[in-house]
């Protein structure tokens, strides 16, 4: 669905098995939205991506990775 992949489930597990609801409460969103992000059915805004990284205390690129399309141009 999206080319943005994430490690949220793994990070939740390492954060004392934080539930989706607990993460949702920290972010101020619904549990369904956390579920959609985790299941890669929704790409969060940049601000929310930073909020998620902040909750787990890790840099953004340890939460999210981007899979570039094959044959796509790379930035100069």
């Amino acid at each position: 669905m999206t080319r943005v992949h994430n490690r949220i489930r793994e990070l939740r597990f390492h954060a004392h098995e934080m539930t989706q609801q607990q993460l949702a409460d920290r972010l101020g969103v619904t549990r369904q939205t956390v579920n959609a992000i985790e299941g890669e059915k929704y790409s969060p805004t940049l601000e929310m991506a930073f909020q998620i990284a902040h909750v787990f205390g890790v840099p953004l690129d340890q939460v999210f990775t981007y899979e570039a399309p094959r044959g796509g141009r790379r930035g100069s």
Partner: protein
Amino acid sequence: MSSEHDVGFQEKSLWITLFANVLVYAYYFWRVLAIGRDPARVGVLFGQTVIALIVIMAAGHIVLAVRQKPERKDERDRTIAMRASRNAFYVLSTGAWAALGVAAMSFEPFWIAHAILGAIVLAEVTRTGSQLVYYRRGVA
């Protein structure tokens, strides 16, 4: 739990809205063709339709709110709503042009009004239906 589809309050609210609109307006268009073009009878039918729509929507949302705690819309809900509104705009503008076509062909006001009403109803069904599809399939 993380990857299976998880139906939230907003999505259930949309199902109620879609169900109410399809049910009530299907009945309206079926009846209005049967009763003809008497403005008084059409006016009464339209009034009954609006009341039925309000009652079904209110009853549905009361039952939903009792069974599930209402949730505030978040950024995903707003993104989905915006994309669905865009889809509805295309339907509404196409319907507006169709209504102009009906007017240009010198049809009676009854047909022009119902072409506009049909476009509004189709746009609303597109808006709610699109949101339900985006909730289920996801938005990148």
